[in-house]
């Protein structure tokens, strides 16, 4: 077990900075995800922490000691790779036990520990097979086994599920979560899938262009995103962003977008000089008899809910309606916004501007 800390870690390739001044702390036993689109620097950061790449400047600490100079093995980290990276010429048992053989452990010990790990990951039947005979999910579990048998300080996961189909991916998430609860090893998980990040992490660090945008729990990044970027990245379908203007009239505050205007409760209004965008998630967009008149355009029935897109002159929103909706394209309805879901972002920059009383 160990905590991991990054202090002003920068990685440059020539003049391009893959990571810029990253400051980050993972607590002992925590499951943290690095989330972001390709090229944001999350895999670079992972490789730096693993020791597979050198930092340009900055320090990486584990359990308080600086590990910049240590090899991956010396850092006592284990890694699960995106393409599994199983040794193709070895059996499953040999793959898992390779690290022990390198350390010249006695054969009996190796066999027993491999058997234990195999049982934990339900691989016992497959121990004699070669990687090419296994399915994607099985291979990934072997990769997990190879990491688990190390009993490392830190687990590192490099988008391990991206090559699996959707159903398998969801199942593996549950398995990983169970594994973490069982072993309680500090884990750093890299992915571009925000749903994956939300579902399995204790905390999420969202990265963009080599920097960390926000670190927080699932709830924090979902309900209180630090920037418009985070707000649109987290959540599916993405948060709607409206570009309108705040108006004050008769002691009440309105947000006008085209021909529609939405009342904003005073407690939610931020103090800010510049132009503001309004963001709101589908579940906080309410359709019914009250509110601004709009026309429905597209409905996406998904089983437990339906997404209904409504248009008006100057704007559009996508609302989440529970169950199957009877709305038809062209139908006229009304839309209002739930106050607890209204967020404001500065239009010029990216930051979220909180209300005065928040």
């Amino acid at each position, binding site marked *: 077990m160990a905590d991991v800390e990054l202090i002003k870690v920068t990685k440059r390739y020539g003049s391009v900075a893959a990571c810029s001044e990253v400051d980050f702390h993972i607590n002992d036993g925590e499951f943290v995800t690095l989330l972001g689109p390709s090229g944001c620097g999350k895999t670079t950061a992972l490789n730096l922490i693993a020791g597979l790449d050198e930092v340009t400047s900055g320090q990486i600490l584990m359990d308080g000691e600086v590990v910049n100079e240590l090899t991956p*093995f010396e850092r006592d980290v284990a*890694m699960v790779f995106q393409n599994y990276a199983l040794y193709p010429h070895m059996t499953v048992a040999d793959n898992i036990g390779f690290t022990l053989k390198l350390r010249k452990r006695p054969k009996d010990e190796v066999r027993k520990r491999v058997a234990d790990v195999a049982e934990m990951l339900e691989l016992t039947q497959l121990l004699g097979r070669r990687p090419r005979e296994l399915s994607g999910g099985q291979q990934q579990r072997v990769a997990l086994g190879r990491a688990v048998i190390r009993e490392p300080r830190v687990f590192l996961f490099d988008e391990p599920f991206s090559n699996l189909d959707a159903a398998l991916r969801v199942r593996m998430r549950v398995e990983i979560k169970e594994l973490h609860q069982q072993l309680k090893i500090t884990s750093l998980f890299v992915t571009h899938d925000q749903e994956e990040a939300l579902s399995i992490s204790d905390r999420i660090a969202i990265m963009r262009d080599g920097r960390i945008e926000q670190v927080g729990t699932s709830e924090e990044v979902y309900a209180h995103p630090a920037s418009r970027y985070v707000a649109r990245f987290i959540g599916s379908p993405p948060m709607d962003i409206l570009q309108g203007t705040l108006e004050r009239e008769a002691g009440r505050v309105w947000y006008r977008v085209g021909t529609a205007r939405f009342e904003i409760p005073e407690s939610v209004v931020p103090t800010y000089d510049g132009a503001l965008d309004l963001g709101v998630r589908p579940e906080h967009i309410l359709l019914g008899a009250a509110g601004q008149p709009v026309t429905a355009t597209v409905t996406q029935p998904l089983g437990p809910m339906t997404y209904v897109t409504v248009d008006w002159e100057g704007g559009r929103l996508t609302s989440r309606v529970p169950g199957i909706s009877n709305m038809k394209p062209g139908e006229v309805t009304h839309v209002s916004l739930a106050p607890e879901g209204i967020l404001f972002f500065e239009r010029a920059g990216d930051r979220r501007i909180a209300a005065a009383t928040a």
Partner: protein
Amino acid sequence: MSASSLAPVAARKASRPAPRSAANRRARRFVSRGVVVAGLVIFTIWTLAPILWAVISSFLPQTALTSTPPDLSPTNLTLDNFQAVLAGDRSLVRGLINSSIIAVSTSAVALTLGSLAAYALARLHVPGSNKILLMILATQMFPGIVVVIPLFIVISRLGLIDTYIALIVVYLSFILPIVVWILKGFFEAVPVELERAAAVDGASVLQTFRLIVLPISLPPLFATGVFAFIESWNEFFFAVILTRINVKTAPIAIAEFSGQYTTLYGQMVAAAVLASIPVIVLAVVFRQYILKGFVEGAVKG
């Protein structure tokens, strides 16, 4: 653009190339197929004829070969030429043994040193690797004569003329670069993540190479070894200059046969055939790897 600027439809239809009749098309296809078949037949005959004639000649006695026309009746077939060539003190056997020793040693050393060097160039961030690769390319362009004159002097002074070690080292100097070049390409094709996984598992650089990279690369290693063997076995120029009696290689023995027994045609050819069997067999057996690896490596190089 108005419609009137385009030629009327009828005129346009007339100017389109006339569709060829079905019979015309069939005839053309027949002709082109005929050309290809003829080409393949000519090519096969042209390529195999000298070899076939050499093999047949080696089984015919002197009388059959020196009659006009050559007496090809099967009753003449004999092993006399081969026996003559393999017996006696001028025999080919010594040459075959020496060539085997030298070729095996050269390929073994070339594979060992070469695979390590190739791995270093492929994966171990050697500074100046581009320059090194250029130098490797350059070594293939020297005429041997430039190098052999000073080498002859040095080797003579060291008293190493007509020794195995001299020939092996000299062969290594131009076989090693090719081995490195070819293997580097293959090692680069091994997924990097495998080596990273090995590092995380605690393997040193050499362990990664020995336990992970090499076992995966056995086919190209074999093929490159075969290639080195063939190049060593067939080499003549350096051998004729740097050896005398003890280390006489098979190619030299063949040349001697053709030089000293200029009228014993059957034996001359039999010696050539015998000495070529090992390398041809190796080339055919390993043709898959040779074809895939070197040819494509050369093109990409």
